[in-house]
């Protein structure tokens, strides 16, 4: 990535609808050529933030810069952005070619220039055979390709994607996901991508901004967000199957120990966010794939015996549910392992791979 300079800069942005505050003094800097994914559950304000960047919503406070230019009061067309919508939003009465050229025709671009740009976009997106068709005669994937093309022909600095793959079926979604990633590598444009799908976020993003309640919870590279979530919300939102949480107490000492019922997990290998944490109520989180099963578990710092409750085969691997104390606990095993309900098993894990959250604040310890 050519990360020189800031492409989009959002400063102290707030948005209120009447008394309802949707976005609260939000700050976000997107580097040139960066792929940022805004990820969060529905109603977290991610699409609203994208509409603010596009200029489709008037903001209540703050400023927005695109390419160093203050565009806070600019019209959408003057911001140097292209947008791709979830429902494609193709003009139904126009052919694909007219759809692509609409923005250029409105802007009064010369005819041969329009033709050149459409030819280039059609070639990049491989939609040349579709140019004379109407949107109604296209499949979902083709429509979304045309919608991307509409942003492409306008030669914009920043691409905004508003859940572009949510209307497609699973197979097309994964195909187009790869295409969008290839497109980004080819164009090197700044892209801001809104989704609630964590797989899209993990696979596409240079950095993910996890949002909740109009606030960015964590802005980091996908691996960092996955392995070191800053709070319990981020930890629970990312990862499928979800992280196991065990509520309990931390007891100081050497080593510090996490206790929940008769469960005691030594924390000497855990990498605390800040040294000298006292005890108190906290939540211990471990991802299902970080749990080791069988003979290999014996070499782990924490080992325990359990019973298989339910087995969920997923094809590539199998999710096994068991009980740790009285809490449901899941872990992953290879698909070849045949386990039956009621089998006694031995599991273990390394607390260095776990996450520990302070119970009152939910923040990482």
């Amino acid at each position, binding site marked *: 990535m050519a990360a020189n300079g800031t492409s989009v800069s959002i400063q102290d942005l707030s948005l209120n609808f009447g008394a309802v505050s949707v976005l609260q003094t939000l700050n976000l800097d997107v580097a040139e050529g960066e792929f940022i994914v805004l990820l969060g559950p529905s109603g977290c304000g991610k699409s609203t933030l994208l*509409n603010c960047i*596009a200029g*489709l919503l008037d903001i209540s406070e703050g400023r927005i810069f695109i390419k160093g230019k203050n565009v806070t009061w600019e*019209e*959408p*067309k003057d911001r140097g*952005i*292209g*947008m791709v*919508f*979830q*429902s494609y*939003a*193709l*003009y*139904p*009465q126009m052919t694909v070619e007219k759809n692509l050229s*609409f*923005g250029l025709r*409105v*802007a009064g671009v010369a005819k041969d220039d329009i033709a050149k740009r459409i030819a280039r976009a059609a070639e990049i997106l491989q939609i040349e055979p579709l140019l004379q068709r109407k949107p109604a005669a296209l499949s979902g994937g083709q429509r979304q390709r045309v919608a991307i093309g*509409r942003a492409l022909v*306008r030669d914009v600095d920043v691409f905004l994607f508003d859940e572009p793959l949510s209307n497609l079926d699973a197979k097309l979604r994964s195909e187009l996901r790869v295409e969008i990633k290839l497109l980004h590598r080819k164009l090197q444009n700044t892209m801001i991508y809104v989704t609630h799908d964590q797989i899209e976020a993990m696979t596409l993003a240079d950095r993910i901004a996890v949002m909740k309640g109009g606030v960015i919870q964590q802005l980091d590279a996908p691996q960092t967000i996955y392995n070191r979530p800053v709070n319990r919300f981020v930890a629970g939102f990312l990862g499928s199957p979800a992280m196991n949480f065990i509520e309990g107490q931390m007891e100081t000492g050497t080593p510090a120990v996490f206790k929940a019922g008769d469960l005691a997990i030594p924390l000497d290998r855990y990498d605390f966010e800040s040294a000298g944490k006292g005890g108190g109520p906290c939540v211990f989180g471990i991802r299902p794939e970080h749990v080791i099963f069988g003979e290999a578990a014996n070499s782990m710092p924490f080992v325990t015996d359990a019973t298989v409750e339910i087995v969920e085969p997923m094809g590539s691997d199998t999710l096994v549910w068991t009980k740790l104390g009285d809490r449901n606990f899941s872990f992953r095993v290879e698909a070849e392992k045949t386990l039956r309900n009621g089998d006694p098993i031995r599991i273990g894990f390394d607390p260095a791979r776990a996450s520990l959250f302070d119970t009152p604040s939910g923040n990482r310890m």
Partner: protein
Amino acid sequence: MSDHAISLAAPHAAIRADASGPSGPKPRHVFSRRNIFLYGTLVVVALYYLLPLYVMVVTSLKGMPEIRLGNIFSPPLEITFEPWVKAWSQACTGLNCDGLSRGFWNSVRITVPSVILSIAIASVNGYALANWRFKGADTFFIILIVGAFIPYQVMIYPIVIILREIGLYGSLSGLVIVHSIFGMPILTLLFRNYFTSMPEELFRAARVDGAGFWGIYLRIMLPMSLPIFVVAVILQVTGIWNDFLFGVVYTRPDTYPMTVQLNNIVNSVQGVKEYNVNMAATILTGLVPLVVYFISGKLFVRGIAAGAVKG
């Protein structure tokens, strides 16, 4: 895989061998009780509505002596088009004796501009209310809708005074303005609902593409709204053509619309009642809305449905 296929095929073959039992399309009985009831009702209702029309057509084709025999349902013994010609070009209304033709052209000159003007304004109104949420839009909309429920009679006299003051009383343009204003509430509601039902993202995409208020209206919204325009045209053409009240109040005898002239022909108290001329005149007056319905019936139903789904 192949084992499965065989084990499945065996019982299937057994069922196949048994040729009795229902198979293929479900048989339909033409003379079921349900059908007799359904079509019987339809026929009765259709007759109920068509009989008066039949009497009108038949009577208009008879001469006066034949009418005096009193057999209103019997077909004409001697078909004559004399009453039609008379109704169109000779019947007397007040001072003029040039028949309904004068009223017909007056009605055309009232209806065409009124329909165009009211639909042009109302469609932009509806578009602005649906897509460009301005401050006070809801209040404006409510005021407009309340307008649809105020009885016309309340406003007749104030409008007479207003038209007199601006010097348009008695002229066709005055009546055109009145029709355009009174069509506004219902048409705006119709268009607003239609435009609201269009996907919001389409409008946003057009804004990102740089189109403005008129650009989006003319190049995106208009081409997509043929059905609702057809509905509006039918509503307005029939409404304005059939209007009697405004016509009689706001025009002079030489600018009377067709409906007012028809009333004057039919209700004239002097001389013999020429039933055949009256019938012909009535059919002539009702012909325009009838033709409009026949031409655009399908589009009308589709458009009404499209506008009515979302409110």
